[in-house]
């Protein structure tokens, strides 16, 4: 029956986009060891950037995406220098509350500037779809998923082979040893954070034509991102990819097979989060938690 196949297709496409959502948070946490509660809000800002680029400059979200990412890297590095670098060695509580405050500021600035109305970008491919017999592949999601996976792939290769990327990984693995090898730690921290903001921008641009853009979307997304990274293991790149696909599939299955499932999908992320934290807080691929 085509019902199951359709469900799988939708789930994988959704999961592919989720990979990009969670990747930025994983990157910044892996390196700086600060969980960024404002990551969802960065994605929201990215979505608005794409919206205004289309509305004012007539730039397609996919065209404005590289520009936004470039700008976001610079802004992210500045933000890190000015704010985040001060709390790197602060207690957990201060880190949580500071990034949470940052999220509140971003959300409400967006609310005041752009009102709470739902918007979305409508490039030509947003409503197209491919048909294979009974199966429908929605065009917007397919393009979103492809762009997301390409970006993740590029960052992955950068981490693997580029000089700076390898330094980033070294820093994530062992900070002291990295310092001894002559890696410029503050600069790498700033770069990793800037890159994670850039990835959030890109994720926002994709979401702008896949779903609705509102100032409140960041918080909902944050829940999903946490579910993904906790499921995969906080700080593990491979784990977050697996977690994203699993969450995408689970949400789609709930929407398809459970009565009134569409309403419950919102709760799936939180249920997953809660269960994983209770059963195995280190996630699928994570290291043992050392507190």
């Amino acid at each position, binding site marked *: 029956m085509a019902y199951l196949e359709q469900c799988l297709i939708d789930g994988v496409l959704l999961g592919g986009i989720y990979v990009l959502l969670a990747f930025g948070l994983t990157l910044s946490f892996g390196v700086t060891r600060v969980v960024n509660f404002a990551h969802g809000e960065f994605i929201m800002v990215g979505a608005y950037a794409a919206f205004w680029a289309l509305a004012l400059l007539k730039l397609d979200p996919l065209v404005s995406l590289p520009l936004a990412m470039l700008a976001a890297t610079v802004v992210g590095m500045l933000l890190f220098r000015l704010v985040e670098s001060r709390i790197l060695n602060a207690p957990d*509580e201060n*880190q949580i509350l500071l990034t949470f405050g940052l999220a509140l500021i*971003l959300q409400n600035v967006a609310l005041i500037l752009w009102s709470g109305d739902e918007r979305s970008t409508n490039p030509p491919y947003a409503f197209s779809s491919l048909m294979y017999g009974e199966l429908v592949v929605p065009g917007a999601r397919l393009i979103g998923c492809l762009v997301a996976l390409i970006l993740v792939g590029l960052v992955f290769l950068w981490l693997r082979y580029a000089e700076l990327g390898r330094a980033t990984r070294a820093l994530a693995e062992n900070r002291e040893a990295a310092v001894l090898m002559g890696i410029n730690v503050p600069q790498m921290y700033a770069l990793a954070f800037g890159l994670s903001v850039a990835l959030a921008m890109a994720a926002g641009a994709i979401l702008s034509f896949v779903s609705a853009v509102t100032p409140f979307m960041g918080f909902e997304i944050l829940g999903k991102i946490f579910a993904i990274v906790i499921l995969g293991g*906080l700080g593990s790149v491979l784990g977050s990819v697996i977690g994203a696909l699993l969450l995408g599939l689970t949400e789609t299955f709930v929407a398809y097979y459970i009565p009134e499932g569409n309403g419950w999908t919102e*709760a799936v992320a*939180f249920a997953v989060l*809660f269960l994983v*934290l209770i059963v195995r807080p280190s996630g699928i691929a994570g290291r043992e938690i050392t507190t």
Partner: protein
Amino acid sequence: MKARFRAALTIGNVSVFLLGLILIVPTLYVPPVWNDWIFRISMLLLLSVSWNLMASTGLISLGHAGFWGVGTYAALLCGNKYGLPLIVVLIPATLCGALLGVLLAVATGRLRGVYFAICTLAMAEGLRVSALMLPKITGGAAGIFLRPELRPSLNVLCFIATCVATLSVAIAQYLTHTPFYYACRAIRNHETAAQMLGIDPRRYRMVVLALSGAMTSAGGGIGAWYGGYLDPMVAFSFMITVQSQIAPILGGMYSVAGAVLGSGVIIALQEATRIWFGDQEGVSQLVFGCILVFGILFMPQGVYGLILRAWKNIDENRQMRGSPKAAPAQNMNAGERK
């Protein structure tokens, strides 16, 4: 007997008593506008004291809206079904909050820091979605109204609110003199070390969460009767979570005085932003966000910390002037402490 009474006359206890007087007595006489402010201060006191209780044990809650929402629904549903007055309904509301706290403590067992914070966030949001998706119990998105004949006058409501708020402040203040509080502080500073001293973190955590949850749910119950209407967005409002942490941070984390001071300042700030910006959406939350960021960056000890430091400086100055010969030694001590 007299000696024991003397011993209880500390600055902290006396201030709690005075706070109670200032809050409770006016509710019997003053006009409605004043009562509105007093009511809001009481609610904020409940939230911030209970949040601070958890923070003092090293548990950062991003899910106070969950406790609050459970309290609101427990109170309103019980009241509507059996036609009970607010005072009686507060009992099940408080119990539900305590139960939720215990459940959370059992579920989160060994989690701390970021993991615990994320867990509370998930709990609150999960509860909100559940309330939305179970309309047979909660009325769903359409919401439910309090039966109008059950609603007491504003003065009575405020009287109850202030009494409950004062009680919670008194409980928190009482705890600061007990071994319980020191155990919690030890857990916050170093859980493993506390464990080696024979403190069982799980048990303390369970009590703290139950107490904190009960306080917040009681607040929720009163809040629901004040508003008279509930839907999941109102009951599990994100604003509750924000409000509960903002006052302790501004006032000074880990101290009852800080939470109380912070609550007063926050209500004043809210009124000020309302006068300057009208009721524009988002402004007060924006102010709260700024307070969080700048408070953590530049004033981690809060207002109470600043006052304490100023007090100490005055004290030292006075001592120096009083005994000029001892002045150099005093100076050296002060230098070392910094």
